[in-house]
């Protein structure tokens, strides 16, 4: 035995701290439970993503097929197999017949669903963060009906989610990762003092502050490392697609945010450990910190934003729309006359062309829509303003900063859904600007009209964002980490050698 006693290098200190931690009772069990929870949440996120993607793709395919059949009909191609260039089922033949019938009729085409959609394609990142995607719509069928009916979907909110809350990897990271770090670190130093091993330990050439830091770092990183592999799931799914680079960057940012968030909680533990209390006291104080930072502050921000920026309810919108509609129905005749006066370019249809007085109902809907539209925009602006308050609240809560940044990365934030609704609203307006004159004149549609028809581009808002939200969240997290970490480290540094 030729070895001699010497102070440990940082690497040796970290490796020894890890060895000791990994041998501690409960460490492996807690890690395993956490990983199982993350795996379950990932699987659930994956299933939701696949389901949503499938619905969006089906809607897009149906619209495309209908369009092909309609254009083919105008070109005189009656056989659906010739139009689509593939064998068709009996059911498809029936649908093709309907498309041929409505292909030239603007009113029928505009009122029938499935031809025009506003679709929000999900990003694979939503596997990690479902955000508000279960509460906000990701597809609208755009028709000649009122915009409120098109854009206000009451059937979106998942009863399960409303009952049980969101269950995704992000929720586990924001709420549970800090608790795992607390469970791993609450007894650093205190445990050695309580066991009576601290004196024997400090009779060796190590500094107490270095030992505490090494333990906190190793234990926090162990918790963080359990989460990081899950960031690879969206990357694997996007591999080989056009989205790969964006998804890879988003995953990297997601992992970075998780790491910094975990390190923030390490500094909270450092601060509490530096107070020099018992394991039990440390545990209680850390859970209080967790409760305040993860639950109280974000909920206070939500309450404040609700009080500061009320949002119009759907009930109010429906009531208003009904009132507008009743008035428009009363004034229908005058409104129709005014329409033709204000639009001399629109040819008034003959009695034969409009034998059921369809133009009357069209003009009523047009007027109802004209009056309801500002309310819809106002409602969306109110939601956006409330979201803005939440973004300010990021400064006061690292948990909120992380949650908002994660949702934004996944394209499932409130802001992104509001943006999608606004784009759908614009598309609805564009659609009506195109169809209204043709409906009011009841002239048949031509191939030229089909060329000019508006189309909603498939959007995946997660791919359009910049990194402002993530940058802000990182800044907030780093500032909190720096402040809490400095205070904690200074306190523990004063006791570098004392047992």
């Amino acid at each position, binding site marked *: *035995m030729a*070895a*001699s*006693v*010497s*102070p*440990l290098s940082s690497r*040796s200190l970290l490796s*020894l701290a890890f*060895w*000791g931690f990994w*041998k*501690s*009772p409960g460490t492996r069990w807690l890690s395993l439970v956490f990983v199982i929870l993350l795996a379950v949440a990932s699987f659930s996120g994956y299933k939701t993503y696949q389901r949503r993607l499938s619905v969006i793709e089906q809607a897009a395919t149906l619209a495309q097929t209908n369009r092909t059949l309609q254009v083919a009909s105008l070109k005189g191609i009656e056989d659906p197999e010739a139009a689509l260039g593939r064998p068709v089922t009996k059911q498809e033949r029936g649908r093709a017949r309907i498309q041929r019938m409505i292909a030239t009729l603007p009113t029928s085409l505009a009122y029938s669903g499935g031809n025009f959609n506003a679709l929000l394609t999900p990003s694979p990142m939503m596997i990690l963060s479902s955000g508000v995607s279960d509460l906000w719509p990701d597809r609208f069928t755009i028709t000649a009906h009122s915009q409120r009916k098109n854009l206000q979907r009451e059937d979106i909110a998942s009863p399960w989610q409303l009952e049980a809350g969101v269950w995704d990897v992000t929720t586990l990271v924001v709420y549970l990762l800090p608790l795992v770090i607390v469970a791993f670190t609450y007894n650093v130093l205190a445990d050695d003092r309580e*066991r*009576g*091993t601290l*004196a*024997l*330990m*400090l*009779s*060796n*050439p*190590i*500094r107490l502050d270095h030992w505490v830091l090494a333990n906190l770092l190793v234990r926090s990183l162990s918790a963080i490392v359990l989460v990081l592999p899950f960031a690879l799931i969206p990357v694997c799914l996007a591999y080989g697609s056009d989205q790969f680079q964006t998804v890879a960057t988003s995953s990297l940012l997601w992992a970075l945010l998780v790491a910094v968030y975990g390190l923030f909680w390490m500094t909270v533990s450092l601060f509490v450990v530096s107070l020099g209390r018992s394991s039990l006291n440390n545990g209680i104080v850390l859970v209080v910190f967790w409760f305040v930072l993860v639950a109280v502050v974000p909920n206070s921000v939500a309450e404040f934003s609700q009080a500061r920026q009320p949002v119009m309810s759907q009930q109010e919108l429906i009531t208003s729309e009904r009132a507008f509609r009743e008035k428009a129905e009363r004034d229908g005749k005058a409104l129709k006359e005014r329409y033709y006066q204000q639009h001399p370019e629109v040819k008034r249809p003959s009695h034969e062309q409009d034998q059921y007085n369809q133009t009357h109902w069209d003009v009523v809907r047009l007027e109802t829509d004209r009056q309801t539209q500002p309310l819809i925009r106002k409602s969306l602006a109110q939601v956006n303003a409330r979201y803005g308050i939440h973004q300010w609240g990021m400064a006061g809560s690292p948990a909120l900063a992380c949650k908002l940044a994660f949702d934004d990365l996944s394209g499932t934030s409130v802001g992104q859904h509001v943006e999608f609704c606004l784009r759908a609203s614009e598309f609805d307006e564009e659609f009506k600007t195109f169809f209204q004159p043709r409906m009011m004149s009841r002239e048949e549609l031509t191939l030229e009209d089909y060329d000019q028809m508006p189309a909603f581009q498939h959007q995946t808002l997660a791919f359009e964002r910049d990194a402002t939200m993530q940058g802000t969240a990182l800044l907030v997290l780093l500032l909190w980490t720096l402040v809490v970490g400095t205070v904690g480290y200074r306190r523990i540094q004063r006791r*570098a*050698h*004392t*047992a």
Partner: protein
Amino acid sequence: MSDPVLQACDLTKTYGSFTALDNLNISIDAGEIFCLLGANGAGKTTTINLFLNFISPTSGQALVNGKDVTRHPLATKTELAYIPETVNLYGHLTGLENLQFFTALAGLRELSRNDLLQLLERVQLPQTAIDRRMGAYSKGMRQKVAIAIAIAKQPKALLLDEPTSGLDPSAANEFSQLLESLRDDGAAILMATHDLFRAKEVGTRLGIMRAGELIDTVNASDIDHQDLEQLYLQHMRS
């Protein structure tokens, strides 16, 4: 003559108006066992804690191999080993794992499993206990693991705080033998104890403390058990 390994120069520790240690001056050479005797609160543990730099002196110096422990805390600890009154190790680790952990903490990471087993053999830890969790160890067995840790460090100075308290006579005897072997290896040993018999058996010099002061020092070879007891009681009564 070589410099003393452990040296206290006017070492004083006060807590407010209470003086825990008053102007202590001692020198302990290599191969010497200095036993500090005294009642509870006499300042024995304070002296050891000052040498370990667990507490800072109010005045004076504690030196290990000529280096002030407050100025060179890490350097002096490379030359020290310590065995507390109650040896508490990690109950969820085995004896071997505890030895591995504490020797690694001392920077002895290159010790092989064989080296560690030899150390446990030297302190006569039963073979069956080596891979058993520490929670099931008796006080004597825990003490042996602590001595193995101390031996592994090959210290120039060894600090012992009431090491035989609570040990049965056989375990205490084995402990004394190990202590003598460490002394023979050239370590300077400072032992705080209530056990006059054990102090006389293993000690080279004996210091009697009362109320923070070292009031008497005798060579162990110059006094027999009975006289030591008389002297001790006399000092305690006065």
